[in-house]
């Protein structure tokens, strides 16, 4: 077996999910200036909803995945209502802190609704893995990487080519001017939270075949996804994708060549290094994060 290649495959597999979470962080940060602590919970919601639908009704797989996406849309709308519409909160700091409350509540609600059960899904593209150069690549990894690729290209087109996408880019530049051009803040917030939640839910549905999902699964994924977003430069679409894959790869390398027991620390160490040395991320100079 080829350990190096296996580390790369494992890193991409987990990294793809981090990447989706990181892109979600970036979209929300651009639109509202806030860090969305509920981002990881969207992954949990997506995975659990897909798993529940699959287990209870046994529909074809795409239906389960679509249900996860629908749950993402709902979660995004709920977020917007809860953290911005409800009070008209426009300060990034207040939204950031409010999402902590939302994350706690979401997690508790899923715990109660699912009675703490764990849920999984079958592989989307069949269980038989691919063997490449003495290593094994899971077909689900390919699916997740494809989702990340499609999401990155699709979002990029959406932001460049469409009316709504341009509004969101404008809001990232100067949210106040956008409101005085006739777009209410909550409309921007609704769009970014729905996009972020759908990305998370897609990640969750894609992760469920690889590792079982429960109400607990989201928090740590969210925090690691944030580290990925910072690594690539918060708000930078392609930076987030690369950041997610890099964190996945480093974690896998630590597991493969060092001790997996410290694997959870990897993302946080990277987060601190980035914050202390290059807080704009590796691929961005735009946003000034130091005061």
């Amino acid at each position, binding site marked *: 077996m080829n350990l190096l290649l296996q580390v790369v495959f494992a890193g991409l597999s987990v990294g793809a999910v981090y990447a989706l979470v990181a892109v979600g962080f970036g979209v929300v940060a651009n639109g509202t200036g806030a860090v969305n602590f509920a981002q990881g919970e969207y992954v949990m919601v997506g995975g659990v909803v897909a798993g529940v639908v699959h287990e209870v009704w046994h529909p074809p797989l795409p239906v389960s995945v679509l249900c996860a996406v629908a749950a993402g849309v709902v979660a995004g709308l709920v977020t917007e209502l809860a953290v911005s519409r409800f009070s008209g909160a426009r300060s990034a700091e207040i939204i950031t802190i409010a999402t902590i409350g939302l994350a706690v509540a979401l997690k508790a609600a899923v715990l109660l609704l699912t009675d703490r059960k764990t849920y999984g899904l079958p592989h989307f593209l069949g269980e038989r893995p691919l063997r490449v150069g003495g290593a094994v690549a899971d077909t689900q990894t390919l699916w997740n990487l494809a989702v990340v690729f499609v999401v990155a290209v699709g979002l990029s087109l959406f932001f460049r080519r469409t009316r709504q996408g341009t509004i969101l880019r404008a809001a990232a530049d100067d949210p106040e001017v956008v409101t005085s*051009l006739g777009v209410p803040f909550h409309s921007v917030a609704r769009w970014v939270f729905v996009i972020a939640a759908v990305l998370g839910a897609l990640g969750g549905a894609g992760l469920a075949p690889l590792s079982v999902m429960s109400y607990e699964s989201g928090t740590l994924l969210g925090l690691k996804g944030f580290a990925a977003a910072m690594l690539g430069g918060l708000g930078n679409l392609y930076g987030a994708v690369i950041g997610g894959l890099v964190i996945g790869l480093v974690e896998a390398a630590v597991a493969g060549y060092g001790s997996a027991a410290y694997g959870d620390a990897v993302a946080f160490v990277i987060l601190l290094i980035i914050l202390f040395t290059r807080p704009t991320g590796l691929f961005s100079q735009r946003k000034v994060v130091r005061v």
Partner: protein
Amino acid sequence: MTDSALSVRDLRVAHGRLEVVHGVSFEARGGQVTCLLGTNGAGKTTTIRGLLGLQTPRSGTVTVGGTDVSRHAPHRLARLGVAHVPEGRRVFANLSVRDNLRMGTLTRTRRWREEPGLDHVLHTFPELTPKLKDAAGVLSGGQQQMLAIGRALMSRPTLLILDEPSMGLSPKLVSRIYQALAGLRDDGHTILLVEQNARLALELADHAYVLETGHIAESGPAGELIASARVQEIYLGSQEES
């Protein structure tokens, strides 16, 4: 067309606990240029932000075209036809010039490709035509000011509010901007102009108010104010000396 397009009554605005605008009243008449004069720190921008709802006023009434908008969020004023050219231009630096202009059409159409009014704006500011595909952030200061005004014009506003359009520009560019503003006045636009540069503004305006430390100190037809001793002393005189 001499009815009141905008009427502000006893507006009070604070930064945190510190009140900066202490009960300001004025109005802008339809089809005219109304000017709000004041030195740095007189509370001009705060007044504008308060009346637009960008900063929640402590008290006061604002009516636009007869509608009470005192508690309205900024986007609702935009939908009533109020366009704002903010202090410091604030164009969307990462958007192309064309997208910046399109952002001005949000209240008029839901279609993105239509760009109604683009020809009119490019006619007013032909300098922007070759730059349409460039990112707004790379434009010069003067071009950015034209873009900010153009963005506001794209909404075909019933009331155009300009906050210090001459700030930070060379005299040559200032006169270019004011030439364009004169054109807009002649087209019948209703304009509220906030300025520090009294001479230029008073030449353009029909009616003017002088704001000092959060109060209206003086008001009247622009022609009369030019002659006023106070304005002479504070604005015009000092400018000529410097």
